[in-house]
């Protein structure tokens, strides 16, 4: 493994690990705030119990998110000092704003987790709202910084140095809105479906306590609308990629040749040597239609770009297929649940739906990870699209395989411990109806 590959692997692993906890930090506060609101309005202690148990799980996951986020802020320099020296003044703004959002989030989470009985119930609820709002704001700012790497704006280069730096223009790039929208919806969908899935599974296992029914309902209130809106957001993203990063779109779709009325390929395995994508189900003209809203539009293939500027095609294409497949599944299950709710049928009495939910527990997270693989791997070989190459930004320090090994071991260890702790929490959750008395 070369030093560059080790650095990329460590960054990918750190981001992939942190994203899970970041998502939970965005989504869970919303669920807790809804549950606590129900308690304040109805006085039903089950909602209080639900809020407190969710808060415990969130506390564990938030702590891991806070420290893994710290690792990332240092890794920007530990692994890519050249990139940060160039980009720091340009995209430091969203990072600074994120710093304050994270501050607010951490402060009010502390108040929320430890403030039971110390502050009034109303102040406690508002602390939860602050956590939810600042958690969302943090994510918005970080994604804005990433969007700049896809569509860099707000500077010009003179002798390798950034001149005329305009940090505001660097925040308002073409990629910013589509990426932020897609990620926020992903966060709410992933958290909602993970929570709904866990409690649906517990109901299927015979836990009849209303605790779990309420949990599924609240989780779906957040997850289902997000999952239903995600295809629209995906369409916005696809059209943005088609316009601004055509090489990435070609890799996502396994489109090697430039084509009028290009087909949409479902599945398949791109072969870079043969310049073809094999074994895909092709829907005629569908790609042109989706990317440009015109069935006869011309889609640029990878042949338009020099070979050294191709992203890894197979990885990008497969990750994209995984994301779309799982997202479609979540949208379909959401539609099912919404129909049931509209016809006033009890969702939790339908065992088929519960099973569909239980299966979907990890899907939102996997889809989000796959989506980040699409956007990050699809941007290669550039660290800043068409401005700077990843290979030129890596730290000169040799032996990067060792830090990579250390972090890998640490992330594996943390994952195992978090899973065990969450299982402990779930084992203690209410069981039978009778226990409510």
């Amino acid at each position, binding site marked *: 493994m070369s030093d560059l590959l080790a650095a990329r692997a460590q960054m990918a692993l750190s981001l992939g690990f942190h994203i899970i906890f970041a998502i939970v930090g965005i989504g869970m506060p919303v669920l807790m705030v809804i549950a606590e609101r129900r308690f304040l309005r109805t006085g039903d202690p089950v909602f209080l119990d639900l809020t*407190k148990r969710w808060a*415990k799980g969130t*506390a564990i996951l938030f*702590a*891991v998110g*806070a*420290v*893994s*986020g*710290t*690792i990332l*802020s*240092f890794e*920007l*320099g*530990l692994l890519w*000092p050249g990139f*940060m*020296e*160039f980009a*720091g*003044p*340009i995209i*430091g*703004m969203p*990072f*600074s*704003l*994120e*710093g*304050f959002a*994270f*501050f*607010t989030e*951490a*402060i*009010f989470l*502390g*108040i929320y*987790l*430890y*403030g*039971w*009985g*110390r*502050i009034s119930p109303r102040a406690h609820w508002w602390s939860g709202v602050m956590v939810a709002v600042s958690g969302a704001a943090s994510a918005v700012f970080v994604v804005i910084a990433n969007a700049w790497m896809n569509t860099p704006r707000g500077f010009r280069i003179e002798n390798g140095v*950034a001149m005329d*730096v305009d*940090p505001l223009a660097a925040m308002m790039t073409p990629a910013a809105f589509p990426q932020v929208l897609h990620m926020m919806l992903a966060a709410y969908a992933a958290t909602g479906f993970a929570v709904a899935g866990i409690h649906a599974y517990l109901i299927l296992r015979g836990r009849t306590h209303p605790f779990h029914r309420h949990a599924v309902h609240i989780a779906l209130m957040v997850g289902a609308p997000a999952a239903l809106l995600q295809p629209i957001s995906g369409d916005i993203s696809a059209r943005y990629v088609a316009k601004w990063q055509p090489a990435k779109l070609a890799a996502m779709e396994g489109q090697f040749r430039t084509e009028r009325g290009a087909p949409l390929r479902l599945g398949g395995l791109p072969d870079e040597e043969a310049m073809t994508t094999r074994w895909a189900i092709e829907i005629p003209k569908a790609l042109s239609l989706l990317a440009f809203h015109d069935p006869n539009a011309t889609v640029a293939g990878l042949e338009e770009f020099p070979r050294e500027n191709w992203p890894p095609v197979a990885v990008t294409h497969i990750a994209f297929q995984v994301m779309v497949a799982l997202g479609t599944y979540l949208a379909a299950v959401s539609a099912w649940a919404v129909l049931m709710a509209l016809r006033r049928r009890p969702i939790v009495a339908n065992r088929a739906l519960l099973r569909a939910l239980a299966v979907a527990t990890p899907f939102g997270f996997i889809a989000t990870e796959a989506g980040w693989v699409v956007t990050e791997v699809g941007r290669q070989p550039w660290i800043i699209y068409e401005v700077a190459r990843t290979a030129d930004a890596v*730290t*000169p*320090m*040799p032996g990067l395989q060792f830090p990579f090994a*250390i972090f890998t071991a*640490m992330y594996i260890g*943390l994952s195992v*411990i978090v899973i065990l*702790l969450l299982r*402990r*929490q779930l084992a203690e959750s209410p069981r039978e109806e009778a226990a409510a008395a």
Partner: protein
Amino acid sequence: MSGDAGLLTLALAGVLLAALLAYVLLGGADYGGGVWDLFATGERKERQRALIADAIGPVWEANHVWLILVVVLLFTVFPPAFARLTTVLHLPLLLMLIGIVLRGTAFTFRTYDDRRSGAQRRWGLVFAIASVFTPIMLGICVGAIASGAAGESWGILARVQACAQAGDTGPECEGARQAATFGAVYVQSWLTPFALGIGVLALAMFAFLAGVYLAVESPDAALREDFRLRALVAAGATAAIAVLLPLASAGRVPIVGERLLGAWWSKPALFVTAAVAATAASALWRRRYRLARWASAGMVTLLLAGWAAAQFPLLVPPDLTIALAAAPQATQRLVAWVLGLGAFVLVPSMVYLFRVFKGRPPAFARMEARTTVRGRDHRG
């Protein structure tokens, strides 16, 4: 770029120092709490640990964000300094990060894992050891910067990079290449007696702060005495290192000999710092805990200010000045706005957090405390 930094640049450098100071005063004390968890002894051992956990629990994550702010400000406003330091201090920063991860997660895992003693002891040990280890690494990084060791190592690396860029293979460049060994660039940048000394000083200082804060927050006299004693021990250690380290390294580390001890302001500054330190110690001795808290925080502030003044106008000695490292004006102006906006949200939130958990308990919480046993399970 001009040799002198503008007012805005100096103000932003001041904010950077203030953020680091906040991290030391608040986050540092959380590490110090972990140190006293490790050295919890006597019949009140478990109560000491419970108090530490109660004191740290609600605030450590918020306190930790000061470090993130330092990092973000550094790469936004002084990007070359960030790039150089993260390059040559890769190894100590890596070790510090491992410490940060283990401290934070082990503390949280202990809070939410099995209440039985086995799991509690295991997490407690990881938390406590990481709380000792991390401040040492942080101090080493500061010492490496202040002494110029980190900057020297960067110079060795930069010469090689300049040769490679120019395609020069002459004897001078060959010499530069041979000098740029892994040890010279990535190890000697921080593994020096002075940096290690600063590491131990940071540990003693954090333990001292924690001891004083915990004495203030102790619910009863016996526990308060425990932490008073601990704070006095840490105060002695801090004073000893703070006096001996400069004397021992004055000849070898130029920043100490020429700038810290030799400047026109040295004598009055040392006098004031010593007076504040003596106030802290005597207040602790006389059991005037609130005064001790103010004086100990003042002492730490003066120590950091002394470091900054000695280094000024250098950001990364021996050659990177604040002015040379500064980002473009447009970025600086916007960062100033963001800081103002951020402070507008942060200050009231921070005040609220500390009033809820560190102020006098509100009436209804006092009432509740009378009816329930004070223990760790109150968090729900």
